[in-house]
């Protein structure tokens, strides 16, 4: 009890960080938490199954910090949950991949197109793109399949014609050695201002334990910098925090992330946060009118630079 975090007699803090099914993008966060632990703080890590659960826990003050998709955070904030976005997790890594021969939206008219559920970032981006690009007005036939990796497998198995994928699944797809899949659209290029995955925190934590929050963000920024300096470092982190992942693919995946400059906790600005908000408002996930300053507290990343 006693709020989001407790202050120990020696001035260190005890609090909880929630992560959702950790993958390569979460690894720097886990490393940053370890930095805090080395500084004497007692940080507990909880692994949750769904971002909604993390939101609920953040809103209730059970967790101090979490990191996952941005849209649930926006929806929660819209519903007056005491949550603020404080840093970036990973840039827009999404791209639509399709069977050979599919290169435009019109090739997909009436074809099975794998999406995640409504409200999810990739879904919103894909639909936004289809609405704008499919000229004949013929939309793809959306098939809802949870999980980027499952969709990659579905694409491999020929059960869908195209789907948005994360970088790691793209690499898996390419290394499968089966027939070539083509990139239909790269959202990282078409929507560079969109930040689909961010770090967010409970506002009470941010006001009452400002220094710790700052320590965390600083550590995260440093970790990201180290990764960008040498992709091998990310591979080492993955080997440490996700020992079950296959090392072979990891090197390739890490290389891809680093070369695209996707790891940059400090990438958030007032403008691109607003851009992200506007995108989700346009997609109907949240109501229009939300302002970046109500949603994000960028002072931490500024201080960390």
């Amino acid at each position: 009890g006693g709020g989001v975090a407790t202050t120990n007699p020696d001035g260190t803090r005890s609090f909880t960080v929630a992560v959702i099914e950790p993958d390569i993008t979460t690894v720097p966060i886990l490393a940053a938490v370890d930095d805090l632990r080395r500084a004497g703080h007692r940080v507990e890590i909880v692994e949750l199954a769904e971002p909604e659960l993390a939101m609920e826990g953040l809103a209730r003050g059970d967790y101090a910090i979490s990191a996952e998709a941005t849209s649930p955070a926006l929806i929660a904030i819209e519903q007056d949950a005491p949550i603020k976005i404080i840093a970036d997790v990973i840039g827009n890594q999404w791209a639509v991949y399709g069977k050979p021969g599919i290169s435009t939206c019109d090739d997909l008219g009436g074809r099975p197109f794998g999406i995640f559920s409504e409200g999810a970032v990739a879904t919103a981006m894909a639909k936004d793109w289809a609405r704008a690009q499919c000229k004949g007005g013929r939309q793809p036939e959306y098939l809802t399949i949870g999980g980027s990796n499952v969709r990659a497998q579905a694409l491999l198995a020929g059960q869908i014609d195209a789907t948005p994928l994360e970088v790691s699944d793209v690499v898996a797809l390419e290394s499968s050695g089966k027939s070539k899949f083509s990139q239909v659209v790269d959202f990282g290029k078409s929507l560079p201002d969109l930040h689909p995955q961010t770090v967010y925190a409970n506002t009470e934590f941010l006001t009452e334990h400002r220094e710790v929050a700052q320590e965390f963000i600083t550590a995260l920024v440093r970790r990201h910098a180290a990764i960008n300096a040498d992709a091998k470092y990310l591979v080492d982190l993955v080997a440490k925090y996700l020992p079950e992942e296959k090392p072979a693919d990891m090197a390739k995946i890490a290389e891809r992330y680093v070369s695209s400059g996707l790891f940059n906790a400090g990438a958030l600005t007032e403008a691109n946060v607003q851009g992200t908000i506007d995108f989700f408002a346009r997609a109907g996930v949240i109501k229009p009118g939300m302002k970046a300053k109500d949603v994000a507290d960028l002072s931490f990343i500024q201080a960390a630079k």
Partner: protein
Amino acid sequence: MTTATTHRRARGAATTRTGPVEARRPCPPRRLLGANLPYQLLTFAVFAVAWEAYATVWGGLLLPTFTETVGATFQLLGTAELWQAMYVSNQALVIGFAIAVVIGVPLGIVLGRFRALERFADVYLNILLVTPMAAIIPLLMMSVGFGLASRVILVAVFSIVMVVVNSRTGVRQVDPSLIEMARSFGATERQIWTRILFPGALPAIMTGIRLGVGRAVTGMVLVELLMVSAALGGLILEYRGLFRAPMLYGTIVIIVAEALLLISLARWGEHRLTRWSKATTARSTR
């Protein structure tokens, strides 16, 4: 189940001792039909008040109040989206459950009739009963695909165990002397099945069907939640993703209501088909 039970049921549990004293009272008039209703309503009221209070005081993003949920339920019932989802979901339910019955009942009868076979199949029935389907849904999807077929298969796999196990039990309960009697009149194996085993096992089969319906609904929603997020499961995911808690639980209320409705329907059919067995057997679940 004779006098004592009937008697206890008729007079309720308040009395600790069955003595003639209290009974001296004139015979109570016929028990009111639907005497259960007040108690059901009472429970419901307690439940609703507790829910409302908890959600109001501690409510979170995903915990609506009772009144919000009721409102959302009615609102949902007026949307085309819900009925569309119901239609899609129930396709899988109806086909999958029909398959479960069509395969499960004869399979259960075979297992009940041929003990040797049953001993070999038993371990697989147990496995089917305990395997967490959620874990294998992805594997199923990969092999069968994402269409109606996989949903149908999952619904069938979910519900077939209950049907098989109960049909088997039913056949075992059939008085063996009836089979012997039929044989003494020169009945063929087929005649024994259709004239003795099936009708004799019918009450238990119906119980299995009732339990199976419940499992089928669970399976239907589960597969939609985990993989093929169409239909009702899709609605749940959508409302959850958008933190629209009242709608989320409104959907759940509607699913549970449908399950209860189907179960009542099965129970009604059970009463109609198996009137002869009233009170002669204590069945696995009334």
